[in-house]
């Protein structure tokens, strides 16, 4: 029997096993919560599993412009690592038991960050609407109704940004207007716009104006580090002061409070892991080679912390 046939056979077994587990879980959940549909539990399981595997990146990815990322459950689930790590930076110190997670290349967020990370969110958010559009009888690739939602697979979607090309500032009200509809944007919609767009400084700003702004606002150029960089580097209009500021902000190292690796000194945060390692007869230092899952799993926590840290946005 060929390898493929044996793999396929094994896959079938695993498929059955997954269904069995899902049914078992459905039964378990139903014991806790009565009158709940199995399909709903299946959905909850799938979402939770995706979040665990991607370390929370799926929350943004599935969120698009609205969605799970903004839900209380999403926020709550993402707070796991915070409670476990007590807000410390995760495992950046070499030579520690679990430091490999930060040093290793196999981190989902680290991988997608190079793509960049925003692309995942924007693109999947758009793609997810394809199914909804099919169901709603629209064109499969029609964009969603949310203001600024990028057209699926457009450059805006792939760069993970909102499509604000149709949004123009309203000099009378000081707000913004949708050029297509002529309607003013609500505060909620304005909040969705990137800071680099809403900032008073943009690529059309002259050097003199920029220097004036910088003098008046010494703490920040645009109020956003990436916005500063865009203005300074891409816009190519910034004088030495602004470029210097942007470079200092970008190259000067990330701000951080304390550098403590997974709080290995405290027994409690690693309790669940230690128990698991002990029960399964492996050294905790070998956890990187073990495929474990859960909110206390180092892989999840590393991804979550990277996901939550101050990252640079993506220009459209």
């Amino acid at each position: 029997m060929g390898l493929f046939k044996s793999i396929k056979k094994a896959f079938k077994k695993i498929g059955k096993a997954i269904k069995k587990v899902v049914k078992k879980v459905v039964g378990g959940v139903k014991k806790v919560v009565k009158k709940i549909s199995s399909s709903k539990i299946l959905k909850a399981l799938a979402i939770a599993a995706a979040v665990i595997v991607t370390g929370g990146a799926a929350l943004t990815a599935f969120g698009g412009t609205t969605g799970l990322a903004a839900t209380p459950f999403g926020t709550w689930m993402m707070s796991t690592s915070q409670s476990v790590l007590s807000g410390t930076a995760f495992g950046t110190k070499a030579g520690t038991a679990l430091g490999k997670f930060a040093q290793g290349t196999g981190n989902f967020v680290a991988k997608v960050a190079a793509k960049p990370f925003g692309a995942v969110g924007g693109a999947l958010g758009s793609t997810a609407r394809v199914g909804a559009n099919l169901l709603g009888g629209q064109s499969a690739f029609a964009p969603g109704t949310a203001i600024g939602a990028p057209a699926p697979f457009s450059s805006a979607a792939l760069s993970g940004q909102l499509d604000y090309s149709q949004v123009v500032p309203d000099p009378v009200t000081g707000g913004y207007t949708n050029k297509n509809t002529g309607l003013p944007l609500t505060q909620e919609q304005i909040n969705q716009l990137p800071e680099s767009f809403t900032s008073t400084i943009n690529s059309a700003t002259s050097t003199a104006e920029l220097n004036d702004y910088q003098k008046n606002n010494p703490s920040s150029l645009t109020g956003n580090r990436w916005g500063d960089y865009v203005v300074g580097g891409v816009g190519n209009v910034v004088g030495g002061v602004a470029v210097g500021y942007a470079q200092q902000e970008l190259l000067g190292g990330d701000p951080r409070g304390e550098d403590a690796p997974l709080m290995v000194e405290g027994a409690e945060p690693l309790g669940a892991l230690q128990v698991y390692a002990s029960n399964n007869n492996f050294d905790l230092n070998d956890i990187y080679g073990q495929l474990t899952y859960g909110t206390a799993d180092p892989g999840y926590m590393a991804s979550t912390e990277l996901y939550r840290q101050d990252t640079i946005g993506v220009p459209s």
Partner: protein
Amino acid sequence: MAKPTKNPRPIVSGSLSDASAQVVLDGLDSGFTIDEIAPSKGPKLRGERQFSQESLDELVSLSNKGAPVAGQSLMNSPAEPYAWEQPPEFTNPREALDYVVALMFEPEAIKNIIVSLSKGAAVIDIGVAILYSQFTTGKINPDVLMMLVEPVAYIIMAMGEEANIKYNIEGNDLDEFDDEEYDEEEEDLKDEFKNSLTGIKEKTLNKGIDISNINSGVVPESILAKVEEKSPEIKSILSKGEV
């Protein structure tokens, strides 16, 4: 909802199903409703598997091309091994999983996965295609491949859920969980009935009723006389009856 009543519980498990089940239960325990965990998006698109003559013809045509002759692989030059005959790129399952999941989150891949689900392809079949391709290109070995089946399947399921598609997990089992739901409801009703019967029995026995203590005056004399009179005519519904 109000604020969650407690922080998430740290969970570690060797099985993703188990870990996600624990997270969901923890979420429910913290005061979230199932609708908050899995928000409803209205009726789902049914990913019904449909027969396609074209696909069948293609399959037949592929089968007719024949299989490799036994031992054919041994005829290959050792200097030019296949990708899967060399050490895999990823031996650590965590790194392999991150790599595969990152590939799956590529916009084009997501599009293809969602379209496949909506056309009735099963989650496991899509998983086979994804992971087997990684094996044949020398990224992972068969052992790591097997370890990644579960997380990959769940990622595909999550994509299907996000796209609001009712998908097949393995084979053609679109409505399996609905049937399960129905069966469970029926079982619950049966259990409830049995429990209430047992309850009545137990309560009666616990009361310690003695026939001699029964008040004879409860049933009027006239009715008892009528029963006495009619008793030869009263037949059990299980009696043979007259032939």
